[in-house]
Protein backbone atom coordinates (compact mmCIF):
# COMPACT_ATOMS: atom_id res chain seq x y z
CA UNK A 1 0.00 0.00 0.00
CA UNK A 2 2.77 2.43 0.79
CA UNK A 3 4.27 1.67 -2.57
CA UNK A 4 1.18 3.02 -4.26
CA UNK A 5 1.34 6.17 -2.15
CA UNK A 6 4.98 6.71 -2.94
CA UNK A 7 4.66 6.22 -6.68
CA UNK A 8 1.87 8.79 -6.72
CA UNK A 9 4.45 11.47 -6.05
CA UNK A 10 5.54 13.13 -9.27
CA UNK A 11 9.15 13.50 -8.17
CA UNK A 12 9.79 9.81 -7.68
CA UNK A 13 11.68 8.07 -10.41
CA UNK A 14 9.28 5.22 -10.99
CA UNK A 15 10.86 1.90 -11.66
CA UNK A 16 9.47 -1.56 -11.73
CA UNK A 17 8.69 -2.02 -8.03
CA UNK A 18 10.24 -5.49 -8.19
CA UNK A 19 13.51 -3.80 -8.92
CA UNK A 20 13.37 -1.32 -6.09
CA UNK A 21 14.88 -2.18 -2.73
CA UNK A 22 14.04 0.99 -0.84
CA UNK A 23 12.02 4.05 -1.64
CA UNK A 24 12.54 7.42 -0.02
CA UNK A 25 9.78 9.94 -0.20
CA UNK A 26 10.36 13.48 1.00
CA UNK A 27 12.60 12.27 3.81
CA UNK A 28 13.89 14.88 6.24
CA UNK A 29 15.86 14.49 9.46
CA UNK A 30 16.12 17.15 12.13
CA UNK A 31 17.94 17.34 15.44
CA UNK A 32 16.18 19.35 18.14
CA UNK A 33 14.18 21.16 15.48
CA UNK A 34 17.21 21.98 13.33
CA UNK A 35 16.93 20.39 9.90
CA UNK A 36 20.04 18.44 8.94
CA UNK A 37 18.80 17.02 5.66
CA UNK A 38 15.56 17.28 3.66
CA UNK A 39 13.85 16.74 0.34
CA UNK A 40 15.27 13.29 -0.11
CA UNK A 41 13.09 11.51 -2.62
CA UNK A 42 14.55 8.69 -4.66
CA UNK A 43 14.49 4.95 -5.22
CA UNK A 44 17.30 2.64 -4.25
CA UNK A 45 17.44 0.11 -7.05
CA UNK A 46 17.96 -3.54 -6.26
CA UNK A 47 21.36 -5.08 -6.88
CA UNK A 48 22.88 -1.77 -7.73
CA UNK A 49 25.22 0.53 -5.87
CA UNK A 50 23.68 3.87 -4.96
CA UNK A 51 26.10 6.53 -3.81
CA UNK A 52 25.33 9.59 -1.72
CA UNK A 53 27.77 12.37 -2.52
CA UNK A 54 28.10 15.96 -1.42
CA UNK A 55 30.31 18.20 0.67
CA UNK A 56 30.96 17.64 4.35
CA UNK A 57 27.92 18.50 6.46
CA UNK A 58 25.43 18.09 3.63
CA UNK A 59 23.64 15.37 5.57
CA UNK A 60 24.86 12.21 3.83
CA UNK A 61 25.52 10.29 7.04
CA UNK A 62 22.32 11.59 8.58
CA UNK A 63 20.26 10.40 5.63
CA UNK A 64 21.97 7.01 5.52
CA UNK A 65 21.34 6.40 9.23
CA UNK A 66 17.65 7.12 8.74
CA UNK A 67 17.51 4.05 6.51
CA UNK A 68 18.03 1.61 9.38
CA UNK A 69 16.53 3.81 12.09
CA UNK A 70 19.81 4.45 13.85
CA UNK A 71 18.50 7.88 14.82
CA UNK A 72 16.01 6.19 17.15
CA UNK A 73 18.74 6.35 19.82
CA UNK A 74 19.40 10.05 19.53
CA UNK A 75 17.21 12.17 21.76
CA UNK A 76 15.83 15.10 19.80
CA UNK A 77 16.22 13.40 16.42
CA UNK A 78 13.16 13.35 14.21
CA UNK A 79 12.72 11.63 10.86
CA UNK A 80 9.84 12.66 8.65
CA UNK A 81 8.66 11.57 5.23
CA UNK A 82 8.41 7.94 4.18
CA UNK A 83 11.04 5.26 3.80
CA UNK A 84 9.72 2.05 2.32
CA UNK A 85 11.47 -1.31 2.33
CA UNK A 86 9.83 -3.89 0.06
CA UNK A 87 6.41 -2.36 0.48
CA UNK A 88 6.59 -1.64 4.22
CA UNK A 89 7.04 1.80 5.72
CA UNK A 90 9.99 1.25 8.08
CA UNK A 91 8.87 3.88 10.60
CA UNK A 92 5.11 3.41 10.62
CA UNK A 93 4.67 0.02 9.02
CA UNK A 94 4.32 -3.40 10.46
CA UNK A 95 8.01 -4.07 10.98
CA UNK A 96 10.00 -4.06 14.20
CA UNK A 97 13.20 -2.08 14.31
CA UNK A 98 15.03 -5.33 15.00
CA UNK A 99 13.67 -6.94 11.86
CA UNK A 100 14.51 -3.84 9.84
CA UNK A 101 18.09 -3.90 11.02
CA UNK A 102 18.54 -7.57 10.21
CA UNK A 103 17.35 -6.77 6.68
CA UNK A 104 19.27 -3.50 6.30
CA UNK A 105 22.86 -3.90 7.49
CA UNK A 106 25.42 -1.22 8.12
CA UNK A 107 29.14 -0.68 7.76
CA UNK A 108 30.55 2.34 9.56
CA UNK A 109 33.10 4.97 8.71
CA UNK A 110 35.77 3.58 11.01
CA UNK A 111 36.20 -0.17 11.31
CA UNK A 112 34.44 -1.13 14.55
CA UNK A 113 34.84 -4.85 15.18
CA UNK A 114 33.88 -5.85 18.72
CA UNK A 115 37.24 -5.64 20.51
CA UNK A 116 36.58 -8.38 23.03
CA UNK A 117 35.55 -10.93 20.41
CA UNK A 118 37.55 -13.18 18.13
CA UNK A 119 37.31 -12.92 14.35
CA UNK A 120 34.86 -15.81 14.32
CA UNK A 121 32.74 -14.39 17.14
CA UNK A 122 32.59 -11.03 15.38
CA UNK A 123 31.29 -12.53 12.16
CA UNK A 124 28.56 -14.56 13.83
CA UNK A 125 27.75 -11.95 16.50
CA UNK A 126 24.62 -10.71 14.71
CA UNK A 127 23.27 -14.24 14.40
CA UNK A 128 23.96 -14.89 18.08
CA UNK A 129 22.33 -11.60 19.13
CA UNK A 130 19.26 -12.85 17.31
CA UNK A 131 19.23 -16.15 19.15
CA UNK A 132 20.90 -18.51 16.70
CA UNK A 133 23.07 -20.97 18.59
CA UNK A 134 23.46 -23.98 16.32
CA UNK A 135 27.15 -24.43 15.69
CA UNK A 136 26.87 -25.86 12.19
CA UNK A 137 24.76 -22.91 11.13
CA UNK A 138 27.17 -20.39 12.65
CA UNK A 139 30.18 -22.11 11.12
CA UNK A 140 28.62 -22.07 7.71
CA UNK A 141 27.57 -18.44 7.98
CA UNK A 142 31.04 -17.47 9.15
CA UNK A 143 32.76 -19.15 6.23
CA UNK A 144 30.30 -17.89 3.62
CA UNK A 145 30.40 -14.30 4.74
CA UNK A 146 34.16 -14.23 5.24
CA UNK A 147 34.51 -15.59 1.71
CA UNK A 148 32.12 -12.94 0.41
CA UNK A 149 34.20 -10.29 2.15
CA UNK A 150 37.38 -11.71 0.55
CA UNK A 151 38.82 -12.38 3.97
CA UNK A 152 38.48 -16.13 4.37
CA UNK A 153 41.87 -17.12 2.94
CA UNK A 154 43.81 -14.79 5.20
CA UNK A 155 41.93 -15.57 8.42
CA UNK A 156 40.90 -19.21 8.02
CA UNK A 157 43.78 -20.38 10.19
CA UNK A 158 43.26 -17.79 12.95
CA UNK A 159 39.54 -17.51 13.43
CA UNK A 160 39.92 -17.61 17.21
CA UNK A 161 42.34 -14.70 17.29
CA UNK A 162 41.17 -11.30 18.57
CA UNK A 163 39.79 -9.14 15.78
CA UNK A 164 42.04 -6.30 16.91
CA UNK A 165 45.02 -8.19 15.47
CA UNK A 166 43.83 -7.50 11.94
CA UNK A 167 44.96 -4.52 9.88
CA UNK A 168 42.57 -1.61 9.36
CA UNK A 169 41.53 -2.81 5.92
CA UNK A 170 41.00 -6.36 7.17
CA UNK A 171 38.99 -5.05 10.13
CA UNK A 172 36.72 -3.16 7.76
CA UNK A 173 36.23 -6.29 5.64
CA UNK A 174 35.49 -8.17 8.84
CA UNK A 175 32.79 -5.60 9.56
CA UNK A 176 31.43 -6.17 6.06
CA UNK A 177 31.45 -9.92 6.70
CA UNK A 178 29.69 -9.35 10.03
CA UNK A 179 26.95 -7.42 8.26
CA UNK A 180 26.72 -9.98 5.43
CA UNK A 181 26.30 -12.84 7.89
CA UNK A 182 22.77 -11.56 8.54
CA UNK A 183 22.10 -12.00 4.82
CA UNK A 184 20.69 -8.46 4.51
CA UNK A 185 18.80 -7.17 1.50
CA UNK A 186 20.45 -3.78 1.73
CA UNK A 187 23.90 -2.84 2.96
CA UNK A 188 24.49 0.73 4.09
CA UNK A 189 28.08 1.93 4.04
CA UNK A 190 29.17 5.25 5.50
CA UNK A 191 32.47 6.28 3.90
CA UNK A 192 33.77 2.74 4.49
CA UNK A 193 37.21 3.47 3.06
CA UNK A 194 37.89 6.93 4.47
CA UNK A 195 40.08 5.53 7.25
CA UNK A 196 41.96 3.13 4.96
CA UNK A 197 45.05 3.27 2.77
CA UNK A 198 44.71 3.20 -1.04
CA UNK A 199 45.34 -0.54 -1.42
CA UNK A 200 42.81 -1.48 1.25
CA UNK A 201 40.41 0.99 -0.35
CA UNK A 202 40.81 -0.66 -3.73
CA UNK A 203 40.09 -4.08 -2.24
CA UNK A 204 36.85 -2.86 -0.72
CA UNK A 205 35.81 -1.14 -3.93
CA UNK A 206 36.40 -4.38 -5.84
CA UNK A 207 34.42 -6.19 -3.22
CA UNK A 208 31.41 -3.93 -3.66
CA UNK A 209 31.13 -4.59 -7.36
CA UNK A 210 30.90 -8.32 -6.73
CA UNK A 211 28.70 -7.97 -3.67
CA UNK A 212 25.95 -6.12 -5.44
CA UNK A 213 24.92 -9.35 -7.12
CA UNK A 214 23.49 -10.47 -3.79
CA UNK A 215 22.91 -7.28 -1.83
CA UNK A 216 21.80 -3.76 -2.66
CA UNK A 217 24.40 -1.23 -1.58
CA UNK A 218 23.96 2.37 -0.49
CA UNK A 219 27.29 4.06 0.07
CA UNK A 220 28.18 7.49 1.37
CA UNK A 221 31.39 8.87 0.00
CA UNK A 222 32.93 12.27 -0.34
CA UNK A 223 35.41 10.85 -2.78
CA UNK A 224 33.91 11.61 -6.18
CA UNK A 225 36.24 9.33 -8.09
CA UNK A 226 35.06 6.52 -5.86
CA UNK A 227 31.42 7.34 -6.51
CA UNK A 228 32.09 7.46 -10.24
CA UNK A 229 34.03 4.18 -10.18
CA UNK A 230 31.71 2.02 -8.17
CA UNK A 231 28.17 3.38 -8.11
CA UNK A 232 25.38 2.89 -10.59
CA UNK A 233 23.07 5.57 -9.22
CA UNK A 234 24.01 8.71 -7.44
CA UNK A 235 22.31 11.19 -5.13
CA UNK A 236 23.91 14.61 -4.81
CA UNK A 237 23.29 16.56 -1.60
CA UNK A 238 24.24 20.12 -0.84
CA UNK A 239 23.70 22.55 1.99
CA UNK A 240 21.05 25.14 1.33
CA UNK A 241 21.04 28.79 2.39
CA UNK A 242 19.97 27.78 5.91
CA UNK A 243 22.80 25.24 6.11
CA UNK A 244 20.37 22.36 5.97
CA UNK A 245 21.41 19.62 3.56
CA UNK A 246 19.05 18.88 0.71
CA UNK A 247 18.87 16.50 -2.20
CA UNK A 248 19.82 18.44 -5.30
CA UNK A 249 19.71 15.69 -7.86
CA UNK A 250 19.30 11.96 -8.16
CA UNK A 251 20.05 10.01 -11.29
CA UNK A 252 22.30 7.37 -12.75
CA UNK A 253 25.92 7.97 -11.86
CA UNK A 254 26.71 8.40 -15.54
CA UNK A 255 24.19 11.19 -15.89
CA UNK A 256 25.25 12.92 -12.67
CA UNK A 257 28.90 12.97 -13.71
CA UNK A 258 28.50 13.66 -17.42
CA UNK A 259 25.35 15.56 -18.00
CA UNK A 260 23.58 16.63 -14.78
CA UNK A 261 20.40 18.66 -14.82
CA UNK A 262 21.47 21.04 -12.07
CA UNK A 263 24.40 23.40 -12.54
CA UNK A 264 25.37 22.96 -8.87
CA UNK A 265 25.87 19.24 -9.49
CA UNK A 266 28.16 20.03 -12.38
CA UNK A 267 30.12 22.53 -10.27
CA UNK A 268 30.58 19.96 -7.54
CA UNK A 269 31.61 17.06 -9.74
CA UNK A 270 34.07 19.31 -11.51
CA UNK A 271 35.56 20.18 -8.14
CA UNK A 272 34.61 23.86 -8.26
CA UNK A 273 33.55 23.86 -4.61
CA UNK A 274 33.20 21.61 -1.60
Amino acid at each position, binding site marked *: MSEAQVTKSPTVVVRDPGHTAMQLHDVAVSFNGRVAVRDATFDVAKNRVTSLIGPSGSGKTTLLRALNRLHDLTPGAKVSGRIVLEGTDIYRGDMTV*TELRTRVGMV*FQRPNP*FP*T*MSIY*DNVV*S*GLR*FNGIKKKSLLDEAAETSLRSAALWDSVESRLKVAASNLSGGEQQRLCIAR*ALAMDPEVLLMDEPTSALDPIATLKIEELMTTLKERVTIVIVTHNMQQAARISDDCAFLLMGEDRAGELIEFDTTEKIFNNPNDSRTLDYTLGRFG
Partner: protein
Amino acid sequence: MNDLTELDEPIEIAQTMRDEIRRVSNATRARRLMVSRVMTTLCAVTLAVTAVPLALLLYQLIKRGAPELTWTFFTKVPETPSLIAPNATGGLSNAILGSIALNVYASILAIPIGVLVGVYLAESMNKFAATLRVIAQTMAGAPSILMGLFAFSFLLQDLHIGFSAIAGSFALAVLMLPVIIIATEIAVLNVPNTLREAGLALGAKPHKVSMRVVIPSALTGIVTGCILAISRAIGETAPVLLVIGGGYLNTWKPLSPVSALPLSIYENAKSEWPSQRAQVWGAALLLVIFVFILSLTARIWASRKQKVSN
Protein backbone atom coordinates in the same frame (compact mmCIF):
# COMPACT_ATOMS: atom_id res chain seq x y z
CA MET B 1 41.77 28.02 -18.55
CA ASN B 2 43.58 29.86 -15.74
CA ASP B 3 46.47 31.82 -17.16
CA LEU B 4 49.75 31.91 -15.33
CA THR B 5 49.59 35.51 -14.13
CA GLU B 6 46.75 34.53 -11.88
CA LEU B 7 48.89 31.90 -10.24
CA ASP B 8 51.90 34.16 -9.62
CA GLU B 9 50.30 36.13 -6.87
CA PRO B 10 49.52 33.36 -4.36
CA ILE B 11 53.05 32.05 -4.62
CA GLU B 12 54.48 35.48 -3.79
CA ILE B 13 52.15 35.82 -0.81
CA ALA B 14 53.28 32.42 0.42
CA GLN B 15 56.90 33.51 0.15
CA THR B 16 56.41 36.69 2.25
CA MET B 17 54.47 34.64 4.77
CA ARG B 18 57.29 32.15 5.07
CA ASP B 19 59.79 34.99 5.58
CA GLU B 20 57.60 36.50 8.25
CA ILE B 21 57.26 33.19 10.09
CA ARG B 22 61.02 32.74 10.02
CA ARG B 23 61.67 36.28 11.27
CA VAL B 24 59.24 36.00 14.22
CA SER B 25 60.55 32.56 15.05
CA ASN B 26 64.15 33.80 15.22
CA ALA B 27 63.25 36.89 17.23
CA THR B 28 61.50 34.90 19.95
CA ARG B 29 63.79 31.89 20.09
CA ALA B 30 65.78 33.02 23.13
CA ARG B 31 62.67 33.76 25.15
CA ARG B 32 61.02 30.47 24.24
CA LEU B 33 64.14 28.52 25.23
CA MET B 34 64.16 30.35 28.56
CA VAL B 35 60.51 29.54 29.29
CA SER B 36 61.14 25.93 28.38
CA ARG B 37 64.05 25.69 30.84
CA VAL B 38 62.10 27.29 33.69
CA MET B 39 59.24 24.88 33.13
CA THR B 40 61.52 21.85 33.09
CA THR B 41 63.09 22.93 36.38
CA LEU B 42 59.68 23.49 37.94
CA CYS B 43 58.63 20.00 36.95
CA ALA B 44 61.73 18.51 38.52
CA VAL B 45 61.15 20.40 41.78
CA THR B 46 57.53 19.30 41.94
CA LEU B 47 58.57 15.72 41.35
CA ALA B 48 61.09 15.92 44.20
CA VAL B 49 58.53 17.44 46.57
CA THR B 50 56.19 14.52 45.94
CA ALA B 51 58.70 11.71 45.67
CA VAL B 52 61.01 12.45 48.60
CA PRO B 53 58.46 12.18 51.47
CA LEU B 54 57.03 9.07 49.87
CA ALA B 55 60.47 7.49 49.60
CA LEU B 56 61.24 8.33 53.24
CA LEU B 57 57.94 6.82 54.35
CA LEU B 58 58.56 3.62 52.42
CA TYR B 59 62.10 3.43 53.77
CA GLN B 60 60.90 3.70 57.38
CA LEU B 61 58.12 1.22 56.74
CA ILE B 62 60.39 -1.40 55.24
CA LYS B 63 63.22 -0.84 57.71
CA ARG B 64 60.95 -1.24 60.72
CA GLY B 65 58.35 -3.58 59.27
CA ALA B 66 60.39 -6.17 57.41
CA PRO B 67 62.08 -7.65 60.53
CA GLU B 68 58.63 -8.17 62.06
CA LEU B 69 57.36 -10.32 59.20
CA THR B 70 58.49 -13.64 60.67
CA TRP B 71 56.96 -17.08 60.46
CA THR B 72 55.40 -16.51 63.89
CA PHE B 73 53.84 -13.26 62.66
CA PHE B 74 51.86 -15.15 60.03
CA THR B 75 51.07 -18.33 61.95
CA LYS B 76 50.48 -17.48 65.63
CA VAL B 77 47.74 -15.60 67.39
CA PRO B 78 48.72 -12.67 69.61
CA GLU B 79 50.12 -13.15 73.11
CA THR B 80 50.46 -10.59 75.85
CA PRO B 81 54.08 -9.86 76.71
CA SER B 82 55.07 -10.03 80.37
CA LEU B 83 58.02 -8.85 82.45
CA ILE B 84 59.76 -12.19 82.09
CA ALA B 85 58.98 -12.42 78.35
CA PRO B 86 58.73 -8.83 77.14
CA ASN B 87 59.08 -9.83 73.47
CA ALA B 88 56.40 -12.56 73.45
CA THR B 89 53.96 -10.80 71.20
CA GLY B 90 52.87 -13.88 69.31
CA GLY B 91 51.69 -13.28 65.72
CA LEU B 92 48.77 -11.68 63.94
CA SER B 93 47.39 -14.69 62.08
CA ASN B 94 43.92 -13.94 63.43
CA ALA B 95 44.03 -10.40 62.02
CA ILE B 96 45.35 -11.55 58.65
CA LEU B 97 42.67 -14.20 58.36
CA GLY B 98 40.03 -11.72 59.54
CA SER B 99 41.10 -9.06 57.05
CA ILE B 100 40.94 -11.54 54.19
CA ALA B 101 37.53 -12.83 55.28
CA LEU B 102 36.13 -9.32 55.72
CA ASN B 103 37.21 -8.26 52.26
CA VAL B 104 36.06 -11.43 50.54
CA TYR B 105 32.58 -11.11 52.05
CA ALA B 106 32.48 -7.38 51.35
CA SER B 107 33.43 -8.00 47.71
CA ILE B 108 30.74 -10.66 47.34
CA LEU B 109 28.21 -8.18 48.69
CA ALA B 110 29.37 -5.06 46.86
CA ILE B 111 30.67 -6.09 43.43
CA PRO B 112 27.51 -7.53 41.81
CA ILE B 113 25.30 -4.70 43.05
CA GLY B 114 27.86 -2.01 42.29
CA VAL B 115 28.47 -3.21 38.74
CA LEU B 116 24.76 -3.51 37.97
CA VAL B 117 24.02 -0.05 39.33
CA GLY B 118 27.01 1.43 37.46
CA VAL B 119 25.90 -0.06 34.15
CA TYR B 120 22.37 1.14 34.80
CA LEU B 121 23.57 4.69 35.52
CA ALA B 122 25.64 4.77 32.34
CA GLU B 123 22.91 3.44 30.09
CA SER B 124 19.90 5.32 31.45
CA MET B 125 19.20 8.98 31.57
CA ASN B 126 16.04 9.22 33.68
CA LYS B 127 15.41 11.02 36.98
CA PHE B 128 15.83 7.85 39.04
CA ALA B 129 19.28 7.28 37.58
CA ALA B 130 20.22 10.90 38.24
CA THR B 131 19.13 10.54 41.88
CA LEU B 132 21.09 7.31 42.28
CA ARG B 133 24.16 9.01 40.85
CA VAL B 134 23.94 11.84 43.39
CA ILE B 135 23.56 9.30 46.21
CA ALA B 136 26.59 7.34 45.00
CA GLN B 137 28.69 10.46 44.72
CA THR B 138 27.68 11.64 48.18
CA MET B 139 28.41 8.21 49.64
CA ALA B 140 31.85 8.27 48.03
CA GLY B 141 32.67 11.39 49.98
CA ALA B 142 31.08 10.37 53.28
CA PRO B 143 33.44 9.74 56.24
CA SER B 144 34.03 6.02 56.63
CA ILE B 145 33.21 5.93 60.36
CA LEU B 146 29.64 6.64 59.24
CA MET B 147 29.47 3.21 57.58
CA GLY B 148 30.62 1.63 60.83
CA LEU B 149 28.05 3.57 62.78
CA PHE B 150 25.37 2.55 60.31
CA ALA B 151 26.31 -1.13 60.51
CA PHE B 152 26.46 -0.87 64.30
CA SER B 153 23.03 0.63 64.77
CA PHE B 154 21.32 -1.33 62.00
CA LEU B 155 22.87 -4.80 62.23
CA LEU B 156 23.93 -4.96 65.85
CA GLN B 157 21.27 -2.93 67.62
CA ASP B 158 18.21 -3.33 65.37
CA LEU B 159 18.76 -6.82 63.96
CA HIS B 160 20.69 -8.18 66.96
CA ILE B 161 23.43 -9.70 64.86
CA GLY B 162 26.37 -9.78 67.27
CA PHE B 163 29.89 -8.52 66.67
CA SER B 164 30.81 -10.41 63.53
CA ALA B 165 32.75 -10.56 60.27
CA ILE B 166 29.53 -10.12 58.34
CA ALA B 167 28.70 -6.87 60.11
CA GLY B 168 32.15 -5.53 59.24
CA SER B 169 31.81 -6.75 55.66
CA PHE B 170 28.51 -4.95 55.40
CA ALA B 171 30.14 -1.69 56.47
CA LEU B 172 33.03 -2.23 54.06
CA ALA B 173 30.64 -3.14 51.24
CA VAL B 174 28.77 0.14 51.72
CA LEU B 175 32.15 1.86 51.55
CA MET B 176 33.13 -0.01 48.37
CA LEU B 177 29.83 0.45 46.56
CA PRO B 178 30.25 4.05 45.41
CA VAL B 179 33.80 3.36 44.19
CA ILE B 180 32.58 0.40 42.13
CA ILE B 181 29.50 2.23 40.88
CA ILE B 182 31.42 5.28 39.73
CA ALA B 183 34.26 3.27 38.15
CA THR B 184 31.76 1.06 36.32
CA GLU B 185 29.78 4.03 35.08
CA ILE B 186 32.91 5.71 33.73
CA ALA B 187 34.13 2.48 32.13
CA VAL B 188 30.78 1.92 30.43
CA LEU B 189 30.54 5.53 29.28
CA ASN B 190 34.01 5.18 27.78
CA VAL B 191 32.94 2.35 25.51
CA PRO B 192 32.85 3.96 22.06
CA ASN B 193 29.33 4.58 20.89
CA THR B 194 30.16 3.10 17.53
CA LEU B 195 30.35 -0.35 19.18
CA ARG B 196 26.82 0.05 20.54
CA GLU B 197 25.67 1.17 17.12
CA ALA B 198 27.39 -1.80 15.49
CA GLY B 199 25.47 -4.11 17.82
CA LEU B 200 22.14 -2.39 17.28
CA ALA B 201 22.71 -2.29 13.52
CA LEU B 202 22.92 -6.09 13.61
CA GLY B 203 19.41 -6.20 15.05
CA ALA B 204 20.44 -6.75 18.67
CA LYS B 205 18.08 -5.58 21.39
CA PRO B 206 19.57 -2.87 23.66
CA HIS B 207 19.96 -5.20 26.67
CA LYS B 208 21.81 -7.71 24.48
CA VAL B 209 24.13 -4.96 23.35
CA SER B 210 24.75 -4.04 27.00
CA MET B 211 25.48 -7.61 28.07
CA ARG B 212 27.42 -8.86 25.07
CA VAL B 213 29.19 -5.80 23.75
CA VAL B 214 29.30 -2.95 26.26
CA ILE B 215 30.07 -4.75 29.52
CA PRO B 216 32.77 -6.99 27.99
CA SER B 217 34.38 -3.94 26.42
CA ALA B 218 34.24 -2.09 29.75
CA LEU B 219 35.42 -5.09 31.77
CA THR B 220 38.98 -3.86 32.15
CA GLY B 221 37.77 -0.62 33.73
CA ILE B 222 35.17 -2.40 35.85
CA VAL B 223 37.67 -4.90 37.25
CA THR B 224 40.18 -2.14 37.88
CA GLY B 225 37.51 -0.22 39.80
CA CYS B 226 36.65 -3.30 41.90
CA ILE B 227 40.29 -3.92 42.75
CA LEU B 228 40.72 -0.29 43.75
CA ALA B 229 37.60 -0.55 45.93
CA ILE B 230 39.04 -3.62 47.66
CA SER B 231 42.39 -1.97 48.20
CA ARG B 232 40.62 1.00 49.75
CA ALA B 233 38.53 -1.23 52.00
CA ILE B 234 41.37 -3.45 53.19
CA GLY B 235 43.13 -0.64 55.01
CA GLU B 236 40.03 0.92 56.55
CA THR B 237 39.82 0.88 60.33
CA ALA B 238 36.89 3.10 61.13
CA PRO B 239 34.07 1.09 59.53
CA VAL B 240 35.09 -2.17 61.22
CA LEU B 241 36.12 -0.71 64.56
CA LEU B 242 32.62 -0.76 66.04
CA VAL B 243 31.29 -4.02 64.70
CA ILE B 244 33.79 -6.87 64.22
CA GLY B 245 34.53 -7.40 67.90
CA GLY B 246 38.19 -8.33 67.58
CA GLY B 247 39.50 -11.27 69.57
CA TYR B 248 42.41 -13.67 69.28
CA LEU B 249 40.71 -16.54 67.48
CA ASN B 250 41.75 -17.74 64.04
CA THR B 251 38.38 -17.68 62.36
CA TRP B 252 36.74 -16.64 59.13
CA LYS B 253 33.16 -17.63 59.98
CA PRO B 254 30.74 -14.87 58.90
CA LEU B 255 28.94 -14.78 62.23
CA SER B 256 31.99 -14.94 64.51
CA PRO B 257 33.76 -11.90 65.87
CA VAL B 258 37.01 -11.44 63.95
CA SER B 259 40.06 -9.24 64.10
CA ALA B 260 41.60 -7.27 61.23
CA LEU B 261 45.01 -5.82 60.44
CA PRO B 262 43.99 -2.17 60.73
CA LEU B 263 42.34 -2.94 64.08
CA SER B 264 45.51 -4.64 65.35
CA ILE B 265 47.52 -1.62 64.32
CA TYR B 266 45.10 0.65 66.13
CA GLU B 267 45.22 -1.41 69.31
CA ASN B 268 48.91 -2.38 69.40
CA ALA B 269 50.06 1.15 68.70
CA LYS B 270 48.66 2.12 72.11
CA SER B 271 50.40 -0.78 73.88
CA GLU B 272 52.79 -0.15 76.78
CA TRP B 273 55.10 -2.90 75.42
CA PRO B 274 57.73 -1.73 72.90
CA SER B 275 57.64 -5.17 71.29
CA GLN B 276 53.94 -4.80 70.50
CA ARG B 277 54.42 -1.26 69.24
CA ALA B 278 57.16 -2.59 66.93
CA GLN B 279 54.85 -5.31 65.63
CA VAL B 280 52.55 -2.57 64.34
CA TRP B 281 55.11 -1.82 61.60
CA GLY B 282 54.90 -5.39 60.41
CA ALA B 283 51.13 -5.14 60.14
CA ALA B 284 51.41 -1.79 58.34
CA LEU B 285 53.96 -3.18 55.89
CA LEU B 286 51.77 -6.20 55.23
CA LEU B 287 48.80 -3.93 54.48
CA VAL B 288 50.89 -1.89 52.07
CA ILE B 289 52.03 -5.11 50.41
CA PHE B 290 48.40 -6.20 50.03
CA VAL B 291 47.46 -2.86 48.49
CA PHE B 292 50.54 -2.96 46.26
CA ILE B 293 49.70 -6.43 45.00
CA LEU B 294 46.10 -5.38 44.40
CA SER B 295 47.00 -2.28 42.43
CA LEU B 296 49.66 -4.19 40.52
CA THR B 297 47.01 -6.75 39.62
CA ALA B 298 44.73 -3.90 38.56
CA ARG B 299 47.47 -2.49 36.34
CA ILE B 300 48.39 -5.79 34.78
CA TRP B 301 44.73 -6.53 34.22
CA ALA B 302 44.13 -3.10 32.71
CA SER B 303 47.01 -3.41 30.26
CA ARG B 304 46.75 -7.09 29.51
CA LYS B 305 46.51 -8.12 25.90
CA GLN B 306 43.04 -9.24 25.04
CA LYS B 307 43.24 -12.98 24.79
CA VAL B 308 40.03 -14.18 23.29
CA SER B 309 38.73 -17.66 22.95
CA ASN B 310 35.43 -18.89 21.73
